[in-house]
């Protein structure tokens, strides 16, 4: 999930992406044009990614989803563009795909939303779906957003962390205090507190989605503070898992299964599996059923409504059977309509946000702007 990269990185990526787009445009001349795509009924689907397709994280998962689409529909053409920045450059990238005949475009990063919305207004014949955004009051027949309920497996990972921690302190390395990250940190903390109410989550921001040097320092500062579980909301995740393993403490992954990097300390993690959802969206568009469908709005899928594309990673040896039973129990409660944020939930100041019996809507979760009680850190 991305709001922005550090300025230098964003600038560099913009330049590389521009070069890549030029190269892509030159290389795909035989890919068909908008005219012939419409004429013979060929379907072309485009995907733009903010990062590299092999970041062992968010972008890799989205890329693998696009590959699953190509596999499920051998007859359609799939266009992929990596390192598309969250700037007007994204519009150029999508225009390039439209010029190649794209009928449906997946804009897969948080910051692509406004550019996808602009393009949707200008190109009523092309369907745009955005991953992770909320389109608010934009009522267009060719635009929608979709996402999973990220915080569900993060909550259950928190259960594993709470059960494993002996010091009662767990560490969370993150990039920026954006709503999705705050929801993750809060869900993790509440999950851990469901096992041990005394759990404290100490947070450290690195100011970037992938800055391994800062990650290494951040991990060290948390270890110095006595945490015995480390987790993260970062795009590249390896440094922190390795740092935890070297320090002999537990780790919880994000975006990718890193259990092989931490054979001793790996607890569990959460990772994306977009294949089914992407394929279903493509099928809906091919069938001509997009307008008015769930995907033509702000589509959110969680355990309650279907298969959450954000799934639990494998468990490490330190997660006992009792803990796994607790996790299954929590999962079942979400399937039955519960939420990781089912009240009572209080903020850092002890003010009750959701009282007993209350729980937030998807919108409220995705605009979360506070830390729950037990989190150490600042949100602004």
């Amino acid at each position, binding site marked *: 999930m991305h709001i922005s990269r*550090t300025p*230098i*990185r964003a600038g*560099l*990526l913009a*330049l*590389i992406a521009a*070069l890549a787009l030029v190269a892509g445009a030159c290389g795909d001349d035989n890919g068909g044009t908008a005219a012939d795509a419409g004429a013979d009924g060929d379907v072309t689907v485009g995907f733009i990614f903010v*990062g*590299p*397709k*092999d*970041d*062992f994280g968010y972008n890799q998962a989205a890329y693998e989803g696009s590959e699953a689409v190509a596999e499920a529909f051998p007859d359609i053409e799939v266009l992929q563009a990596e*390192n598309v920045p969250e700037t007007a450059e994204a519009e150029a990238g999508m225009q390039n795909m439209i010029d190649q005949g794209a009928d449906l475009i997946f804009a897969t990063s948080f910051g692509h939303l406004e550019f996808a919305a602009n393009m949707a207004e200008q190109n009523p014949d092309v369907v745009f779906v955005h991953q992770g955004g909320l389109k608010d009051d934009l009522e267009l027949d060719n635009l929608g957003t979709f996402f999973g309920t990220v915080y569900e497996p993060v909550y259950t990972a928190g259960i594993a962390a709470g059960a494993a921690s002996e010091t009662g302190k767990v*560490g969370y390395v993150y990039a*920026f*205090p954006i709503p999705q990250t705050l929801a993750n940190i809060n869900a993790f903390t509440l999950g851990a507190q469901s096992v041990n109410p005394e759990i404290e989550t*100490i*947070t*450290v*921001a*690195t*100011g*970037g989605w*992938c*800055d*391994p*040097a*800062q*990650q*290494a*320092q*951040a991990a*060290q*500062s*948390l270890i*110095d*503070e006595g945490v015995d579980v480390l987790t993260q909301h970062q795009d*590249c995740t*390896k*440094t922190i898992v*390795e740092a935890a393993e*070297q320090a002999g403490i537990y780790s919880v992954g994000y975006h*990718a299964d*890193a259990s*092989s*990097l931490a054979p001793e300390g790996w607890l569990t993690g959460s990772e994306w599996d977009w294949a089914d959802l992407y394929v279903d969206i493509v099928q809906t568009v091919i069938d001509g059923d997009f307008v008015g469908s769930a995907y033509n709005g702000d589509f959110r899928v969680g355990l309650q409504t279907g298969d959450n594309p954000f799934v639990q990673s494998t468990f490490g040896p330190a997660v006992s059977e009792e803990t796994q039973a607790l996790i299954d129990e929590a999962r079942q409660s979400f399937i039955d309509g519960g939420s990781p944020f089912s009240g009572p939930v209080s903020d850092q100041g002890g003010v009750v946000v959701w009282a007993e019996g209350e729980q937030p809507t998807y919108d409220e979760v995705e605009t979360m702007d506070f830390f729950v009680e037990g989190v*150490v*850190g*600042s949100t*602004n």
Partner: protein
Amino acid sequence: MIEQVLYGAVRGGTSLLFPVLGETIAERAGVINLGTEGSMLAGALTAYIVGVQTGSVWLGALAGAGAGASLALVHAFMVLTRGANQIATGLVVTFLGIGLTALFGQEWVGVGVNGFGAVAIPVLSQIPVVGRVLFDQDPLTYLSLLAAPAIWWLLFRSRAGLRLRAAGERPDVLLAHGGSPTLVRYVAVVAGGALAGLGGAQLSTAFTRDWSEGMTVGRGFVAVALVIFAAWNPLRAIGGAYLFSGAIALQLQLQARGWELSPYLLQAAPYLLVIAVLAVLSRRRAHQAPEALAKVF
């Protein structure tokens, strides 16, 4: 907490100290190399790949230095043989490094490396505070701490250093004495690139044990700024690198200790520090810069 910040300053500062030393050598010979960031990335990836393939982190570090030197050679050829603008060429070399490492690094993301670990020096590492900060680090950190005084001696006490500085101050004088400013500058730029590559190698195989695209995130550019802070002096370079790295370590420690400060503000603090230091020092430093810096000879 002081011990922890100092420890973090040294541990995280090595990947800056090497490129600052390298850039100092290049600029002392009269060449600004903004390709440092590219050389660091080339060094980081190459060291990682060779470290994984051969199982020897030392071979990896050596290869990383070679990769950094190779990119610097491109810069040297462009500005010294072809007379290209040093600033523009350096930036292009950095972009080249970013692009090439992104391309060749793809399959190495997520692959584990058996990197450099900390090696505690007997007895010395038992000294309170100083022991952990200076004598319980990875071998490349020790190497950087030995390299700084060695390079200082080379630059200011050896004949070769005199010629190198002449190339950066009065290339015509060096030429009149039968030397070749161009050759000296070639050697300086390539040696500087090798050191930047070594910094990248420390970043990927010792400090983070990770390869990911663009992982230096601007450290090469920070290194160029720190050269001015250090007044083109290899010994002061140690202070510059550790000051910046220490500022990062400090803000992360403050966060972990629950200081109610904006993470955005804390993140910006190390860069604000560099700008403040440059603002205070630059007028004085202008007289200390090599006279023929960035001038085509």
